[in-house]
């Protein structure tokens, strides 16, 4: 899991997963 610092009460987490033979870094923004 990778995270970025909480700003404006918004949390941002991400995870890089392999999709077939490509790499997607899925970034999810959610409210704190």
């Amino acid at each position, binding site marked *: 899991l990778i995270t970025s610092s909480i700003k*404006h009460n918004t949390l941002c987490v991400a995870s890089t997963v392999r*999709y077939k*033979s*490509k790499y*997607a870094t899925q970034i*999810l*923004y959610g*409210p704190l």
Partner: protein
Amino acid sequence: EQNIQLEQKLAIQSIRNFLKSKTSYDVLPVSYRLIVLDTSLLVKKSLNILLQNNIVSAPLWDAKTSKFAGLLTSTDFINVIQYYFCNPDKFDLIDKLQLNGLKDIEKCLGVPSLDQGSIHPFKPLYDACVKMIESRSRRIPLIDQDEETQREIIVSVLTQYRILKFVSLNCRETRFLKRKIRELNIVTDASIDSCYMTTPVIDVIQMLSTRGVSSVPIIDEHGRLVNVYEAVDVLGLIKGGIYNDLSLSVGEALMRRGDDFEGVYTCTVEDKLSTIMDTIRKARVHRFFVVDGSGLLQGVITLSDILKYILFEE
């Protein structure tokens, strides 16, 4: 002349076969980012996230149902502005509006929900293009299923621009598209809705919404094209909190544009699709306004028009 026609016909068929032989997955870079917004985020927070990441749209994720919940696009922000103009007393509601409340705004305004549709990443790229044209949307989410949990995966979102750029980079046949634009019947003619620099920006936003277009050309008193107001400009308007200024003209609203805006692309009916596709390969262009020799507005060629021609004409 006949050679050029025959070459164009064969080139289009070859490009179409290319689109049928590739999948949407092939368009994806080897490594890429996908920004997804939780539907419980505030609309105004999501606007900051889009602007911070220099994007104009993002897929939504509903954590309650563990499902993809559609795309956030500039159309949603246009609806919010229109809702505000119909209900100026509801300012604080807009301030607290969450992404999962946007559907209610659509219902209040009586605007149709954008049918985004979606497609599996391993379907032919041609099918993704047809789906986008049918749904009149300029982007299509690629959705797969988690092998184990059958839960939806938002793999990515393909746009018409990305597909045409992929074609311009990979299909050498685009060089043989030498017939003049005037012969191809792909220009939306001059009766398209235009406005003046002094037109109130709210009227222009209404035009974007009621006509279902993503840009409105701005002409001078002689009918010459001077600028364009685009749907994505609405994001800057809201960010600046100036959308509640009824008297704002579209010329003043355009002062919000950042310096990285590349400018409005124009062409004439003498141009060819080969040079149009080459421009798409080199620049982030989303439409070409057709002008005559003295700059008078004649019409517009959108990426949808180009895609439709490639998919169905000749």
